[in-house]
């Protein structure tokens, strides 16, 4: 790997090489997350504007207000940082970072393309689901430590909602995992290689339905409208965010957008072919490691573009819903989860199980990838399997 390369080629000490590479990886991921947050803040304003028959930001940065997020960021940094007198100061300060860390850790195991992943875990799916559930801690701590009843309401709603929706979300994730036979996200992505019909969402009708349940649960677990009860403005002022201002508020915000993007990405890998486009363009062009290392790398780059687009579209759909639908009531949110999502997901689970048992190949004939099956690049295997220490 790069660290080995650096050690052997330039004689860097191992600790420096490893540490440096880890640092760079972290910075890249942080960059992606921050950029996503900035992009989506701007995009949300534009999308909301267009849906509401207005323009959204137009001035900042010349055209389209593309620097609006920067202006927002500067404004938020310059804002007075208030902590309520009654608040538990330590927890109040800690809470946004808890949320942010959880959202960030998801990116550690999220592959952006064939093997482009910071930490290739062979239980990647499981890790992401586990970590994504931890974001709620920040919300609960923030709501509790604000010493405001509205914040507390927001926190309690969030707790109830996230804990409930983790069940159908977990079930929905397990179904494609069952079809794929692995928890390794890279492997799941790679088995959907080829034409669009190979995507798991088209594997069988049950998986097709599962995808929509997954989308619903994603909305709920990332706290987006119509499930944004924790910060329901017209009911709870701003819910757990009521007492937050300035930078800490923006950290919560980045965590929200970060996890929206991550969950869209997870959905893209599990259901929508990950980094494989509907047309196997890379293979048609011969961009594979079998031909040349650089070509293979280019193919992966194309894949990363594919993946980012799919995740982006997922977020765009979330925005579309937010600016269209009214908010559900808490009992309706719970009913949706417990009475509809859980039984449906369970039924889909059983259905998929029977389907794969009866028709192991799937209904649609799997299109064979063009040309020779591309050989996976050497670093796609889990790191541990190569016998190295992280």
């Amino acid at each position, binding site marked *: 790997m790069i660290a080995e390369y650096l050690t052997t080629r330039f004689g860097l*000490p*191992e*600790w420096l090489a*490893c*540490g440096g590479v880890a640092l760079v990886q972290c910075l890249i991921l942080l960059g992606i997350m921050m950029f996503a947050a900035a992009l989506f803040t701007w995009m949300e304003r534009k999308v909301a504007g267009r849906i509401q028959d207005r323009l959204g930001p137009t001035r900042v940065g010349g055209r389209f207000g593309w620097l609006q997020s920067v202006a927002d960021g500067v404004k938020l940094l310059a804002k007075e940082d208030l902590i309520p007198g*009654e608040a*538990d100061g*330590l*927890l109040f300060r*800690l809470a946004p970072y808890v949320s942010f860390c959880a959202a960030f850790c998801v990116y550690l195991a999220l592959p952006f393309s064939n093997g482009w992943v910071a930490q290739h*875990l*062979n*239980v990647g799916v*499981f*890790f992401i*689901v*586990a*970590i994504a*559930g*931890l974001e*709620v*801690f920040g919300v*609960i*701590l923030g*709501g*509790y*430590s604000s*010493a405001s009843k509205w914040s*507390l309401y927001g*926190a*309690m709603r969030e*707790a109830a909602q996230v*804990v409930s929706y*983790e069940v159908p979300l977990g079930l929905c994730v397990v179904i494609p995992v069952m079809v794929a036979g692995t*928890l390794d996200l890279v492997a799941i992505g790679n088995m959907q290689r080829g034409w669009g019909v190979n995507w798991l969402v088209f594997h069988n009708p049950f998986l097709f339905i599962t995808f929509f349940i997954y989308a619903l649960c994603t909305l709920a677990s990332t706290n987006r409208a119509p499930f944004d009860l924790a910060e329901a403005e017209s009911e709870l002022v701003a819910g757990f965010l009521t007492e937050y201002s300035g930078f800490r508020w923006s950290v919560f915000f980045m965590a929200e957008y970060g996890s929206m993007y991550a969950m869209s990405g997870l959905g893209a890998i599990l259901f929508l072919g990950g980094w494989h486009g509907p047309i196997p363009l890379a293979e048609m062009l011969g961009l594979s490691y079998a031909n040349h290392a650089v070509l293979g790398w280019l193919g992966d780059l194309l894949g990363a573009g594919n993946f980012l687009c799919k995740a982006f579209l997922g977020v765009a759909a979330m925005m579309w819903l937010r600016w269209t639908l009214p908010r559900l009531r808490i009992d309706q949110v719970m009913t949706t989860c417990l009475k509809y999502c859980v039984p449906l997901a369970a039924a889909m689970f059983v259905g998929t199980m029977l389907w794969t048992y009866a028709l192991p190949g799937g209904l649609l004939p799997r299109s064979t990838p063009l040309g020779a099956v591309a050989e996976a690049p050497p670093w796609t295997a*889990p*790191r*541990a*399997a190569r*016998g190295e*220490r*992280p």
Partner: protein
Amino acid sequence: MINWHTCFFLLFATITCAFAVAVVVSANVVRMAVCLIASLAAVSGLYFLAVADFVAAMQLMIYVGGTLVLLVFGVMLTARGPFVSMKITPANWLMAGLAGGALLILLLCAATSVDAWKTAAVAASAPAAEGGHTVAPIGMALLGIRVDALEQANPALRGGIAGYLLPFEIVSVHLLVVLVGAAHLARARRRRRPAEAVPDASRSA
């Protein structure tokens, strides 16, 4: 020469211990829960270091995630008066110390009794090397096939004992029954009261 592995091990171990102590020392229920979360999360970090991804993710999901409920209860209990602190009497300290000490001794005994861990060389070649793929062996073990014991000379050991599937299923069904029972018991039965008897806040507030 820095060994990152050792570095991180020390870091995570320190965090684990420090927050464990903080849980004991802290007087505020919610802060206790937060320290417990930090401690448990650091343990999960240790598992990652040991290349036991599956166990680590499990730790995150079950223990750290499970603390959520604890946290929520803590919040609910202290929501009335802000940040109620706990009063701890010396007797509590004594009893807790006894129980904790006993467990610590048990743990130390167990740790020193495993021969393989006594030499550093063996520890380095611990199963972690072929690990990473911890899911499949665990799954197989449930079905009664010990992957790590395939090279065992003793065929009785090689086949595993009987697998853990049956006990696992029994335990899960048991848990389900307990859950249903708890839900039934806790179900709020509503009692009707005539509207007149309702305390009217517009009058009293």
